[in-house]
């Protein structure tokens, strides 16, 4: 274990008391008092029902919660199921806890959990987010089984989502990651995934990529698995509760974090993605593009207005990020009438690749570049909302696939922009 992963004495003592385990589930938390008890119960219940012969431990890593999350995590226990009596498991389900920083970034918690997994020689591990709100004993088992039973090293989740949820993942992260790294992993931003003890050891031994780990821990871990030729899959975890519509400030914060994470990863793994020319599918255990019928109330007019005002007001900033032709194309789109409005795939992909190149060369402040990109994201999202108001899951999937192919077809353009001198 590298020296920079510092585990405090108390946590090490707890780990030594537990000894070696077969499965380990980490729960990073920060002010999750409302959901932490349910999450811990679901994990414990999963251990009792699905892994009753295995030695298991639940590790809570709290980032300085002020609402008693850490205490609730240790106190919650799974109630026996109806009709169940006596012993549920042949093993004691251990529960240990530590804390790091005050509201620190999730990458630090993930690293602590990986270090614990490495020390406890866990074979199958998972990270479960109390934020997701849909943790069940089955979903925990679905993340752990492919590793424990089938020998996979990394398991990404798949969900049944509301049609308009996760549009940044659908329009940017998934197709971009697939085109660049050649692996189609759909959900790398949910805070939930499974990994083997072997992968934990590889990740801990890796030097560099600290920024990527801080900004996008799941992306960093998935890419470590890919680069080490380890087996990856995606497992269906069930329905994800529809995310409530969010304010503009929340959208900007989410985009800043996600895009920065993606580009940090591109910078730290250049030797991996640059020579890659083909994309291969990642095995999905269960449905991979299920859509729930409900969707939140959305103020579409405001999204379009913000796209239009952003393009006109931020022209000088966009000029330093985008190629003149791409900017001209976007400016041509802006005044289009409501029902005809379309943000074409090619313009979208080119603008993202140009943003990546400008980010790499730091033509202006990186944070400013990503903020300037937000109005373009709104334009693209508006186009998506218009187009898929009544679409079926298959139609949305076909559209998503066509966007992925555009990303892959234009990858030479990304290389061109990435390596350009100015």
């Amino acid at each position, binding site marked *: 274990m590298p020296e920079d992963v510092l585990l405090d004495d108390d946590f090490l003592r707890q780990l030594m008391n537990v000894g070696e385990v077969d499965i380990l589930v980490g729960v990073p938390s920060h002010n999750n008092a409302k959901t932490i008890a349910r999450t811990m119960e679901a994990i414990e219940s999963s251990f009792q029902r699905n892994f009753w012969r295995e030695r298991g431990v639940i590790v809570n890593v709290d980032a300085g919660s002020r609402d008693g999350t850490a205490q609730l995590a240790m106190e919650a226990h799974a109630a026996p199921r109806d009709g169940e009596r006596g012993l549920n498991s042949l093993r004691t389900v251990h529960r240990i806890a530590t804390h790091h920083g005050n509201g620190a970034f999730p990458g630090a918690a993930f690293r602590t959990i990986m270090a614990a997994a490495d020390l406890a020689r866990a074979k199958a591990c998972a990270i479960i987010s109390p934020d997701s709100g849909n943790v069940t004993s089955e979903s925990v088992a679905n993340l752990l089984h492919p590793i424990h039973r089938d020998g996979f090293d990394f398991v990404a989740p798949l969900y049944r989502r509301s049609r308009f949820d996760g549009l940044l*993942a659908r329009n940017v992260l998934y197709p971009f990651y697939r085109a660049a790294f050649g692996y189609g992993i759909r959900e790398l931003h949910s805070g939930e995934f499974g990994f083997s003890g072997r992968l934990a050891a590889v990740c801990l031994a890796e030097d560099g990529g600290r920024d990527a780990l801080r900004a996008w821990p799941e992306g960093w871990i998935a890419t470590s698995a890919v680069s080490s030729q380890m087996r990856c899959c995606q497992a269906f975890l069930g329905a994800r509760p529809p995310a409530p519509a969010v*304010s503009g*400030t929340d959208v900007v914060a989410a985009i800043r974090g996600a895009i920065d994470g993606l580009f940090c990863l591109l910078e730290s793994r250049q030797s991996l993605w640059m020579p890659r020319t083909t994309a291969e599918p990642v095995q999905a255990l269960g449905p991979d593009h299920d859509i729930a019928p409900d969707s939140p109330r959305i103020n579409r007019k405001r999204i379009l207005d913000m796209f239009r005002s952003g393009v006109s007001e*931020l022209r000088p900033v966009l000029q330093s990020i985008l190629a003149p032709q791409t900017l001209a194309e976007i400016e041509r789109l802006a005044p289009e009438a409501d029902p005809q409005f379309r943000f074409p795939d090619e313009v979208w992909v080119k603008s993202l690749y140009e943003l990546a190149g400008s980010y790499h060369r*730091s033509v202006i402040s990186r944070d*400013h570049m990503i*903020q300037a990109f937000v109005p373009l994201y709104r334009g693209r999202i508006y186009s998506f909302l218009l187009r898929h108001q009544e679409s079926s899951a298959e139609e949305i999937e076909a559209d998503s696939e066509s966007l992925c192919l555009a990303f892959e077809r234009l990858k030479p353009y990304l290389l061109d922009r990435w390596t350009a001198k100015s």
Partner: protein
Amino acid sequence: MKDMIVQGLAQSYQQVVRTFAELLPRLAVMVIIIIIGFVIALLLKRIFRWILSLTKLDRLSEQSGASHALRSAALPSTTEFLSRVLFWIVWVGFILLGISALGIAQWQEQISHIFQLLPQILIAILILFVGLLAANFFSRAVLLASVNAGFRSPRLWSACVRFVIWILAISMALEQIGLARRTVTTAFSIVFGALMLALAIAFGLGGKELARQTLERYLGDKRREREKEEEPSPL
């Protein structure tokens, strides 16, 4: 009479010749000092440019938008601009040194005043440059935040920030070279106070509705909930 005129002319001629003979070596010294100064200033300029290129100042300047502002004013890159400023300051210093070598008493005092001012001028230029960097960076940050939050007139907010930072930098620079200290401080206070008052009046009268909405937004949860129902969750 005639002899007196001839004698007077001869004396004047001798005086001029003597003065010129005394001045000529000093003139030569002045020219030599100016030439040596030029060479030293040129060397310093190159060394300074090399040091600045090592510090990647141009990249910082590009990121903050200062380079764009310099280009708009038909000025060269930041590194080149600062190197040229150093060159001129050093060379002007040598020129003044050369002039003082002429030994003209009336000029000595003025030149020593200018010499005392030179470091202050250099610091003032640096203050202006940092002000330019800060004004560009913060005005762009305000522009982006205003556009993404859907505020009206984002360019006006951005321009206000740029203006305030520029006023602050200019008054600091003038204060540094000791130019009309009281006037500058008073002028800055008046401009800044007037700007704030204008904003307060504009917000209070012109933006009564906006002020009410802003207060309600902060105090009323219902309105906040309604405002949240705007955009789909990105992740």
